[in-house]
């Protein structure tokens, strides 16, 4: 099968099981550059597994994932790690900031992992922190900032490498609605400004409203809502 025309990242017939539990059962997905796609579904439906497979974090048991014309499942672990460092960005539900690093060091971390010098990485990190309105937190540690602030720092970290695809797994799950909305605004604005595609896993309709398109995952199978509508 060929991926949909113009898609940056696509997946076909993905299957993934954890022991006896079938997490994905023939799921399909595609996303274009600059597009924001919300992956929705109830808890345990396989949304996060789909995201992890698309990002090359876990390999699927079968099926194909194509990124920018390259077969992801044909890559080995270190190639996938390199791809994640250079082309992908991540935001998780609880930020997963490194607690012992300051906020600016956290944001600079992906650049430093790519070999950028500390000074340069922190300069770029500060630019993104300003855009996400958290530059005043640069010297604080994650434990000293609020959940909303921490999540914005995490968004800044995910965007600092100018990724082509941003994966966000329940990015507002731990925030109140006001903070959640602010984070989503900043995240989608920043992604659109860099033409990054956003794969947004959520089970909240108000978060999904920030997307261009919705894909629903249920029992490991995906369904493109746009086509149904």
């Amino acid at each position, binding site marked *: 099968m060929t991926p949909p025309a113009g898609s940056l990242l696509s997946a076909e017939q993905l299957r993934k099981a*954890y022991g006896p539990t079938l997490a994905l059962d023939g799921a399909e997905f595609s996303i274009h550059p600059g597009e924001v796609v919300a992956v929705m579904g109830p*808890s*345990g439906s396989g949304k*996060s*597994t789909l995201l*992890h497979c698309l*990002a090359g*974090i*876990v390999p699927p048991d079968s099926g194909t994932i194509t990124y920018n014309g390259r077969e992801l499942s044909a890559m080995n672990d*270190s190639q996938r*790690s*390199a*791809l*994640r*460092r*250079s082309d*992908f*960005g*991540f935001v*998780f539900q*609880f930020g*997963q900031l*490194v*607690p*012992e*690093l*300051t906020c600016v*060091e956290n944001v600079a*971390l*992906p650049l*430093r*992992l*790519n070999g950028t010098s*500390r000074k340069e990485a922190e300069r770029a990190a500060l630019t993104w922190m300003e855009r996400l309105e958290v530059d005043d937190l640069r010297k*604080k*540690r994650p*434990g*000293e900032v609020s959940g909303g602030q921490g999540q914005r720092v995490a968004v800044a*970290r*995910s965007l600092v490498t100018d990724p082509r695809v941003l994966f966000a*797994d329940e990015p507002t799950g731990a925030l109140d609605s006001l903070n959640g909305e602010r984070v989503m605004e900043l995240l989608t604005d920043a992604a659109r400004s860099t033409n990054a595609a956003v794969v947004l896993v959520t089970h909240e309709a108000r978060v999904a409203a920030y997307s261009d398109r919705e894909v629903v995952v249920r029992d490991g199978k995906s369904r493109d809502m746009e086509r149904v509508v």
Partner: protein
Amino acid sequence: MSVRQWARDLAMGVRFAFTGGREGWTRAVLTAVGVGLGVALLLLTTAIPNALAVRHDREAARTDITFSSEQLPKADDTLVVADVGSDFRDDSVRGRALDPEGPRAPLPPGVEKFPAVGEMVVSPALKKLLESDSGALLRERLPDRIVGTIGESGLIGSAELAFYRGADDLASHIDGGSIARIDRFGDPDPSSERSDPVLLLLILVVFVVLLTPVAVFIAAAVRFGGERRDRRLAALRLVGSDGGMTRRIAAGEAMAGAVLGLVFGAVFFMIGRRLAGTAEVFRISVFPSYLNPSPLLALLVGVAVPAAAVLVTLFALRGVVIEPLGVVRAGRPARRRLWWRLLLPLAGLAMLYPMIGNGRDNGDFNQYLVTGGVVLLLVGVTALLPWIVETVVARLGSGGVAWQLAVRRLQMSSGTAARMVNGIAVAVAGAIALQMLFVGVDDDYTRSTGQDLAQAQMEVVLPSDLLVATAADKLRDTEGVKAVYGYSEGYLGDRPKDPEHGTTVTVGDCASLRAMARIDSCTDGDLFAVHGAEWDGDEDMTKLAAPGRKFYVDPSYEGGPKSKEIPWAVPQGVKAAKPRKGLLAGTDRGGFLFTPKAMPDALAPALTGHAFLKLDESVADVHDRVRTAAAGIDPLADTVTWAETERTGRFDAIRTGLFVGAACVLALIGVSLLVSQLEQLRERKKLLSALVAFGTRRRTLSLSVLWQTAIPIALGLLLATVVGLTLGTVLLKMTNTPVGVDWAGVLTMTGIGAGVVLAVTLFSLPPLLRLMRPEGLRTE
């Protein structure tokens, strides 16, 4: 606050420890295993004095040859016993030949019936060895039929090699030395040896040095999994418990782990006790029944460990603010203060100071001051280390990502890191101090034997009625023997009884005599008098060698048995010889030197034969081949393997005890480090997975873990070296010994400490790599 409320909170903590599902159980079991290992080691250590006492008692109970000058007459309750012990490879084999002289002759402990001639009873370990292929060479030496085994009461350890063999006609060989007549077994004068204050000091310090790290380890073990517990405590605050209650509940949880640890400890101890019966460490073996800790010490351990768990937890949580919505630690915790941390080692030094210059001759050291001083100095390491780690890591600059992750982690929780290495640092500090003390006083307990290993490597002492030449020929035929110098030796005096003047008599062929003195020409039949020797008796040799002067070979002495008293007169034609550093114990030796033909036959029974052997030490088991050959010549022949120095047995035993104990303590601390490391990694599973998700190399994370351990351990070992050298210096000054630093020893000890950490890091890498798998991000 009421005792009841305390009890209620603690009880609630105990309940939480066991009702938290799998995670709760895991934590409780981890704590219990850690505490249990420590408790087992404590019990084992407290049982050591008892084990040594039992060994000593058993040794005393089987004492037979006491070199007593008193001679018992033959009776129906006497036994003639000969020391026919030997060595096999590096193990000594205790052996006795028994010749009962009547029906009421005393049986040795552990032996039910006297073996007949050609029979022997052996220890279980010797039986096993003789039945094995590796014991074939020894079997050749001990060909007697095994008719029984020696019971536990006759042995000092489970791995001891010992035998009793039947013999006859031993009475004619009684010499007041290795062959004696006895009417009972047992030490007739058991308390004659006065304890050496320096040896007592060594024993005391060894105990403190071994036990302090165990206590430090137990304190660390009760805090396993602390971070996760803190989150649980936050939930308790949410439902209404105040800060104090929460801390007491946490203390209750730790206490539960400690109590379970006591149970584990008792089980580990019982297993260890059983294993101890089958193991031999540094040539010391015991029977399980020896390892009974004193009930008072066991009770103390039983009370102190749970109490310590409660106190340590309350102390550890004093700086932690537990809020209902999560544990909030001050972003930058209050800086640690140095002053009170310095007080501990200073107080330790102050306690030891009054004993400086005490030495060996001013009575015993005050054991309370010694124990208190050493404990305070060593515990000072645990107080100072967190401050040092915090101060140093706060100043560490930037580096690569791995370095940055490690340094930042240390800056955030330097206490955890310091706690992890505390035990090692204390053990190394103590070991360095002891090493210094041992090396310092080593000379006092080591004496030169004067044996020149370039000339010979073994000596065979033959019974008096044996011809040396015949024996020498047989020894010469043994594989690995390059040369044999044979001598017969005796003493002559100017009177048959209680002589006033006297000197030595040596008989040997020309080649052998030349190895002993400088002789111009020599033919068989010559007789020489050595002039100007360092040791040639108590009268000028010129007078002694005057022709016609009368002597008695083997004179008798008052109080001793009647000797042979064989008369001999100096003949004409005695040649002069000059002394040289010869074979005999390094000193140049004087007296009369006889070639075989010059020696009157009548003198032969009064002489003891010696054969000195030059060996080809590349031949396998050459020493045992010689021992077997010597036993073939005469079962009463004694063999001595030469060494340049010899040490007192007790000094060696204490030193051995230190190494055994230090090995156990370091292994224990290594296990604790590993458990603690794994616990920390488990806590960070999600974060590690997230870091890997956005592309962090595994190598970077592994390196960061290594730095995280290496930085505090480097600081810990540095502090341990400083404290160890200080303590070593003070101890040496206390014993009035010149202070010298054995840098090789210091490096070895710190190297071993660093090796333990490296091993722990290596062992923690596989789980780290597993935890870094992106699957860790899954929550369902």
